[in-house]
């Protein structure tokens, strides 16, 4: 199977580790992934901020670049959500019939990482090792737009050494919402504060999720209050093994020590 890799603009610029981890997991399972360098952003930011026309060239590019693959995978629930639910919207409004068909076609084979692993490749135990106490935030778009259900959790449960703890009120939004975090900064912060309180209540060392953007937001808050709790993307946990354990970064390690 030809698997194309969509690396979201945020992961590309800010969290390349998440992309590397996605590649590592799939390669370890014996699959070859391709990263077509002509790709760019999925356009979600434009659509959600009210600039659908500006999103059109990005939607066209996506449909074009990923058409040749059997499956496309992205380590981001919200970008896959955008491909599945927003590309059609933009294509219907501004695109040609050809684009509408192309968009439907490629959306049907675009998967979030846990969906690809569990539904398409049929694995739940990817042979990972992550000896830490972890709580999982399901993120709204994975939960409600994609309905990934407990696929991420079944992957996590199979991880060696992990101590998975339930997050109270897990289905509540963390308050990121793209530009919402900036346009409605106060409300966003109030939502984030509750999410952080729940994370801290679990006593976990890490809060994990399938979306770098939510993690950037929650992690930014946890860092600001010097909580000592880190964030880690689902892909990074799945990529870690006994031979190549997850490198707890320096800043995080210090705060963790400070906490102990």
């Amino acid at each position, binding site marked *: 199977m030809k698997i194309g890799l969509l690396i979201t603009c945020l992961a590309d610029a800010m*969290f390349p580790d998440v992309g590397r981890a996605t590649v590592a997991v799939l390669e370890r399972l014996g699959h070859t992934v391709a990263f077509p360098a002509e790709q760019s952003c999925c356009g979600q*930011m434009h659509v*959600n901020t009210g600039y659908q026309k500006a*999103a059109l060239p990005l939607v066209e590019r996506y449909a074009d670049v990923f058409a040749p693959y059997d499956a496309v995978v992205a380590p981001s629930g919200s970008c896959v959500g955008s491909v599945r639910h927003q590309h059609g919207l933009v294509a219907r409004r501004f695109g040609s019939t050809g684009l509408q068909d192309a968009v439907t076609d490629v959306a049907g084979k675009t998967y979030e990482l846990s969906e690809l692993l569990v539904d398409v490749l049929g694995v739940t135990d990817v042979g990972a090792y992550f000896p830490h106490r972890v709580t999982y935030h399901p993120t709204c778009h994975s939960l409600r737009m994609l309905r990934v259900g407990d696929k991420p959790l079944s992957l996590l449960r199979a991880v060696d050494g992990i101590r998975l703890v339930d997050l109270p009120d897990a289905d509540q939004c963390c308050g990121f*919402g793209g530009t919402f975090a900036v346009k409605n900064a106060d409300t966003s912060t109030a939502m984030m504060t509750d999410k952080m309180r729940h994370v801290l209540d679990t006593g976990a060392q890490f809060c994990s999720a399938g979306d770098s953007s939510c993690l950037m937001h929650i992690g930014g808050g946890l860092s600001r209050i010097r909580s000592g709790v880190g964030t880690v993307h689902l892909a990074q946990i799945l990529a870690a093994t006994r031979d190549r354990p997850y490198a707890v970064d320096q800043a995080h390690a210090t705060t963790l020590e400070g906490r102990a």
Partner: protein
Amino acid sequence: MLGMPTLPPPAPRGVGHLRGDESFPAAARHALADTQLRANLGHATRTIRAKRASVVAELPDWEELREAGRQLKVHTMAHLPDYLEQLEAAVTARGGVVHWARDADEANRIVVDLVKAKGVDEVVKVKSMATQEIALNEALEAAGVSAWETDLAELIVQLGHDRPSHILVPAIHRNRSEIRRIFLDEMGDVDPDLTDEPAVLAGAARLHLRRKFLSAEVAISGANYAIAETGTIGVVESEGNGRMCLTLPKTLITVMGIEKLVPRYTDLEVFLQLLPRSSTGERMNPYTSMWTGLTPDDGPQEFHLVLLDNGRTQVLADAEGRDALNCIRCSACLNVCPVYERAGGHAYGSVYPGPIGAILSPLLTGVEDNASLPFASSLCGACYDACPVKINIPEILVHLRARHTETYAEEHRAPSAEAVAMRTLSYVMRSPLRWTLALRSGRFGRLLGRRRGTIGEVPLPVVKQWTETRDLARPPQQTFRDWWADTHSGDPS
């Protein structure tokens, strides 16, 4: 074009409660600072949420019911003019009088004239969103008529000189000690030893209201639904005050948005299951009152139905936004909304708060009059999941955001800073070369936050709002695409 009927206008300015004085973020700031309010809201929405979830889970066919509700509404809206005419004919045949009101001003004038013609200076009211929307109480007041709200929560709001903040529980932002204070200060004839026990408070309100019910000659109600086939109007409520208003006074005036229509009597089967479970978390609502025109010597002997447009035809004309009219005002979307829970109902500046308000108010007024509302959502989607008629609120929000930015662009010669940023980003991102270069140059961000590995407060626009409460991770040494080029350059791609 000559001879073409023109669309009735959007809800007019200067009348009614569909627009706020402040933008959503500014108004939310007050609510966020009020810790008592946040505690009241958090507690109340959490309680209703849990109750709703458990009664919804009882029904094995909940999803089918939702789909049935949605389809009934979609069908009705597609044939609205026909069904409205059918309704008018049926109501008239049974002795009622139908009035058509293009907007809030016209509706208020019709009702005030009807009340004045009866020569009364007092009316009793059943809680109604439509009359809140057009500010009928204020119009009556200006004409020297006192309108008494008889719903307990609505009474609390009225006596407290306050505004409702929730569709179903208008006083959700008040706790019982606040309510006791309001009663003591405003009811006049209340026992000074009043406690804040809910039963005692309800008893005081009951005594106060009973006198009104027995003396009022005219009642004003809204409608939860109207049945086109029979001309039957229905109101559901849970205190019995509605039933008193609908049966005791001689004259009944109902003000109803033109979308509150169902084609047939049997359609109620669906909505009477969807509504109570979604709204109060009950299996059935305690009081369902239905009336069809007039019945000699029983109940009101004069019945007027005011059909209110006030922007609804405009909403109907918007193919992407139209589904907002399917709303049955259950308030489930409010109770699950994390933004509503923090910011409170008043921040939406309209009688329609929460997720439905964020789409319905701008649709009724025109998006520019409520331009901050479509952005008052993190698009988490909880509202869509909860909505008993499956209104895709997130998608309509996104549609209205686009309408706002496009209208702005048409009306202003210079694009907003945001529009420039979005277009530039789109320009950069659609070319791999430009994007790669941009990513590389973006690494100047590494200069910031060298010490802790994160970036703290930065006084730049946008970045400031972010970094006030959150650290920003320091950009990495190498982007993903550069890493890929280094490690997988020989790969086919």
